[in-house]
């Protein structure tokens, strides 16, 4: 019997596609319904941030880091820039400011994971998840707005502290939100975790082994779902992460469901961190005195990393002693996770593209910078 002659088909997805989470273009080579190869075409949101940072001083770079990098984790980006600059220039940071920073970064992680869960719900056909997550995200936005004045872009952290102290009554509101949110989290679990459709779409799909994860440099929840026990908050502690008690969720399956569970567990841990910080936070100054806005960072180089909601966000800062950095290399977590996607997708069906793509939680501004 003669076998049927088949040809491979190249399918173009994007840059405008409702499920690519931004302006990502995927060139998918298909054999029938099976994926042979996926080639992401990126750069549709390349904003030349690294070039612009060379022309702005460090305070201005904080504002740029909000917008130009991963816009869903603006405060974590600010921290990334500040960690590099403060390490190199030995800027002291008051205790209270460290606690405030930690609280805000964890709130940012919650907001980011909530948006991911909502959009991933839409991707897999669960619209309720989107509405619920947006509802809770608005409450976080209110907490942000009360302190920083911004919803997405805050420009709240400064060299040597934060811009201003928390408004009166904020800590109680935040504590109230945390307890409310823990209940909501249980509700999400009831809605999705045991849902047979959800499990069928995600369990066993898009597996990335631990070895592949390390080889591709995968980080964050993607790496942790593949069994790599690694969180920058634990391995390179910054701010007050070494003073609070939290677990790093790790799963070994490496599939979309494991990535979902990692993020769900992370949200619970983030809430725990916030509650502990609120309890431990001392009174006092929130900004070191006599740190000029146009700080001259002494010549030198440093590579520091922070844990963004998407993974290990690194900054290689090169200074020649001026007000502006000589070179800033942003090591973006989404960039490497997107590269790992090419390996994850091999052999799966067309319908799984969206499930796998959604599960790695990329932000195109972070990929392209």
């Amino acid at each position: 019997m003669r076998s049927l002659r088949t040809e491979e088909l190249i399918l173009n997805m994007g840059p405008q596609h409702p499920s690519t989470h931004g302006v990502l273009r995927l060139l998918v080579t298909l054999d029938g319904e099976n994926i042979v190869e996926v080639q992401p075409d990126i750069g549709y949101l390349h904003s030349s941030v690294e070039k612009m940072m060379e022309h702005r001083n460090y305070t201005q770079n904080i504002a740029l880091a909000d917008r130009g990098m991963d816009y869903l984790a603006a405060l974590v980006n600010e921290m990334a820039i500040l960690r590099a600059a403060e390490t190199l220039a030995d800027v002291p940071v008051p205790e209270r400011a460290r606690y405030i920073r930690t609280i805000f970064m964890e709130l940012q992680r919650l907001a980011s994971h909530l948006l991911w869960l909502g959009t991933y719900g839409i991707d897999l056909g669960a619209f309720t998840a989107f509405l619920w997550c947006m509802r809770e995200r608005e409450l976080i936005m209110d907490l942000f707005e009360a302190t920083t004045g911004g919803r997405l872009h805050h420009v709240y952290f400064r060299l040597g502290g934060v811009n201003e102290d928390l408004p009166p009554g904020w800590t109680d509101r935040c504590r109230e939100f945390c307890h409310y949110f823990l209940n909501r989290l249980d509700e999400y679990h009831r809605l999705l975790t045991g849902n047979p459709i959800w499990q069928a779409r995600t369990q066993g799909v898009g597996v990335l082994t631990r070895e592949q994860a390390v080889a591709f440099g995968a980080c964050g929840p993607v790496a942790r779902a593949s069994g790599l026990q690694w969180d920058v908050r634990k391995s390179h502690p910054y701010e007050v992460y070494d003073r609070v008690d939290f677990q790093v969720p790790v799963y070994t399956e490496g599939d979309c469901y494991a990535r979902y569970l990692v993020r769900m567990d992370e949200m619970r841990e983030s809430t725990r961190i916030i509650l502990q910080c609120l309890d431990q936070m001392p009174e006092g100054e929130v900004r070191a005195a006599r740190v000029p806005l146009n700080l001259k960072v002494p010549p030198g180089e440093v590579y520091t990393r922070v844990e963004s909601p998407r993974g290990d966000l690194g900054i290689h800062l090169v200074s020649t002693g001026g007000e502006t950095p000589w070179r800033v290399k942003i090591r973006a977590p989404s960039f490497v996770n997107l590269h790992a996607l090419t390996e994850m997708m091999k052999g799966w069906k067309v319908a799984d593209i969206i499930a796998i793509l959604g599960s790695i939680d990329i932000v195109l501004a972070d990929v392209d910078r």
Partner: protein
Amino acid sequence: MTPSRNPSGGFLPPELAARLRERFPQVRDAAEAAREALEAFEREQEERQRRYQEEVERAKAEGKPAPRPPRKEEPAVPRYRTPTFEVPREVFREVMEFLRDDPAFRMDYLSFASAIDWKDRMECTYHLWSTVHNHELLVKVPVDRDDPRIPTVSDLWRTAEWHERETYDLFGVVYEGHPDLRRILLTEDWKGHPLRKDYVYEDPDWLVELARVRQSEVSGVQPPLGERG
């Protein structure tokens, strides 16, 4: 994984740094060199302070007014808060293979591969980290700025594939042996490599044409008025 012993930056045990220098004598420990330069600077400062004290005493003995104290100087020595090694191009591949495979190093995670343009020279940078031992180091390789070429490491770490493409795109560094070296962020027809310090932006022709078409729609006149195109 134990937390990093240096909470502000990366960490590499000194015995490992010594081991690397022993295995490859050509490799230069930038942090070590900076430390030596800083010590020399401090010695010089002490010397100046001592001389000043002598002058003060001499002036006192002669009954003259005391001389002005020397200006406080900041050292121009760069600080390396991350362990940094300068590796010559000739032994670059060997060093990288050694760092990845040596059981004491086990640098199995490449954080990024990039470059720095110093205007007169260029350096390729690689940051390595070990998922096993949680130590890290930065490798810097000087390359010729006019014709930057360096062997690829994408066969050692798969992740380097994209990082090298990005560096090629933005700096024009050619990675020899890379399986698929083409632009990744910018369009295929882009002129120049924008992260070089001497880059000058130029509108692509098709963008000028697109803006001209749009302009003609605004004015409602075909063919368009003016010299805007």
